């Protein structure tokens, strides 16, 4: 479906920006790098969301839960036991995987679907947020301030933004590769089959419950790596910037604008929305709320006028480009 048999021209279309991305930190200033990091970072997170919600159609409104679990696990282990976040992020992913499997298992065991599943995920994230607000050992409402160690690559701490830039870029590329691999595999076929017609999938021998739980678990574990990145980049986390429902919205918005259930959607969406968010934030930042108002308007406009996101349009344009 997506990107099936890309022609040579398509590769050139992709290789040019990739080279630009690789050399960008040499020329770019810190502000541009910061925006690029955010583009990659949100593309990554949104791709994780997309693997669950875009492909299998199980709509999560609580991905902040997995981001938060990842961020808190690695940060807690780092600040309390001086465990390097490079290891901590895997433990975070493991914990998040368990949380995801737990949520997925109990939701699907009881046959939660559609809006009910969405509401349940939102409630789970809220539960975690309230819980962490009330856990003094996790910093409570004040949050966790990570110990500064200067330029310490082994501790996931760097001077300057370039290393973060490359990490975010790699994360984005890996997530794209994972999505691409899934899309072409049996698992991907099953995910899409579950999305489009669960009953029929079941009749064709698909263990729909199992595959849905797998999707939640995979997506949760991957999202947790994003959590660690977030914590290391800002060196500060609190329940309201990790577990909050707005973080969940931020994560899913990119996929929706780009195109759910497509490999390129989250990336395209992030390239559109993240700079837009940054620009409106810096232009209208003086008045709080203004840029998020625009967010809301964009979201409503997308639902009414472009319910499949911008990807189908871009795809059409690319096919024309290839055939020329």
């Amino acid at each position, binding site marked *: 479906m997506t990107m099936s048999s890309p022609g040579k021209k398509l590769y050139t279309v992709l290789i040019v920006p990739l080279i630009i991305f690789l050399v960008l930190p040499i020329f770019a200033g810190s502000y541009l790098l910061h925006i690029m990091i955010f583009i990659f970072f949100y593309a990554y997170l949104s791709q994780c969301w997309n693997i669950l919600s875009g492909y299998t159609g199980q709509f999560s409104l609580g991905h902040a839960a997995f981001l938060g679990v990842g961020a808190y696990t690695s940060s807690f282990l780092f600040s309390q036991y001086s465990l390097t976040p490079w290891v901590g992020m895997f433990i975070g992913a493991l914990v998040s995987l368990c949380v995801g499997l737990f949520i997925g298992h109990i939701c699907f065991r009881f046959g939660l679907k559609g809006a009910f599943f969405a509401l349940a995920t939102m409630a789970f994230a809220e539960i975690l947020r309230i819980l962490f607000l009330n856990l003094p050992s996790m910093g409570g409402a004040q949050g966790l301030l990570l110990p500064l160690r200067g330029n310490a690559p082994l501790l996931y701490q760097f001077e300057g933004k370039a290393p973060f830039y490359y990490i975010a870029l790699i994360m984005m590329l890996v997530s794209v590769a994972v999505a691409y691999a899934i899309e072409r595999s*049996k698992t991907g*076929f*099953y995910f*899409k089959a579950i999305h489009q017609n669960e*009953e*029929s999938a079941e*009749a*064709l*021998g698909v263990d729909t419950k199992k595959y849905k739980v797998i999707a939640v678990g995979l997506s949760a574990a991957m999202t947790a790596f994003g959590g660690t990145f977030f914590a290391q980049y800002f060196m500060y986390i609190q329940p309201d910037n990790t577990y909050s429902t707005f973080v969940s919205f931020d994560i899913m918005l990119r996929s929706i604008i780009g195109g759910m259930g497509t490999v390129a959607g989250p990336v395209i969406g992030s390239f559109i929305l993240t700079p837009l968010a940054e620009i409106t934030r810096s232009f209208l930042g003086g008045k709080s709320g203004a840029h998020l108002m625009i967010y809301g308007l964009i979201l409503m406009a997308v639902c009414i006028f472009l319910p499949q996101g911008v990807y189908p349009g871009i795809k059409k344009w690319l096919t024309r480009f290839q055939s020329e």
Partner: protein
Amino acid sequence: MALLEVQKLSKHFGGLTAVANNNFVVNQGEILGLIGPNGAGKTTIFNLISGFLRPDQGTIVYKGKEIQGLTPHEISRRGLMRTFQTAQAFPYMTTLQNVMVGGFMHDRNRKRVEKSALETLEFTGLVEQKEKKAENLTIGDSRRLEIAKALAGRPSLLLLDEVMAGLNETEIAEAVELIKKIRDRGTTIFIVEHVMQAIMSLSDRIIVINYGRQIAEGSPEKVAKDNRVIEAYLGEEYVIE
């Protein structure tokens, strides 16, 4: 030899008895027809056998093992597959991809699955539609796709639920040929159908149900002459003529 044996099968919805104490067998290699008025419980029987509903009572024995209580995917993995009354394809996948979903049941390898899916499309006469999205198929082709998806899972017993509804006569004739071809490859078939000329020419035996109860069973000729069947299903006037 009995491939599927149903004993004392019953199902109630609230106060309504959908299936009441049904007993029948599907023999290896035959085409068994199931007819009855709308709402008589035919689809309920299919749903019970394929695991989409749990029976209130009774046993369903397939290949010598009880399968009631198993999930639908477990049952289909044992080679008992079904189609749906309203063709239920994956609307945004191509015809080929639709069939591949069924093919992945026995094989992970994408290339091999694709190859055998193409063979299935060839067999069902859909190969020219392979790149078409399922939502854009004609009624006739979407019925074929419904069969093709199930065939990709290499069933030993195939339950066909009104696959001819809405087809014109040429299409019905083609569908009859296709079903015969499937049987000749060794798949046993259990079919629900309202199109009388099809069910009469296809079936080796026919079971007739009304209000969830079996009212007749036997060869097409015998069933067509049965007074109770005429009264409940074929229409009263048949008695006179």
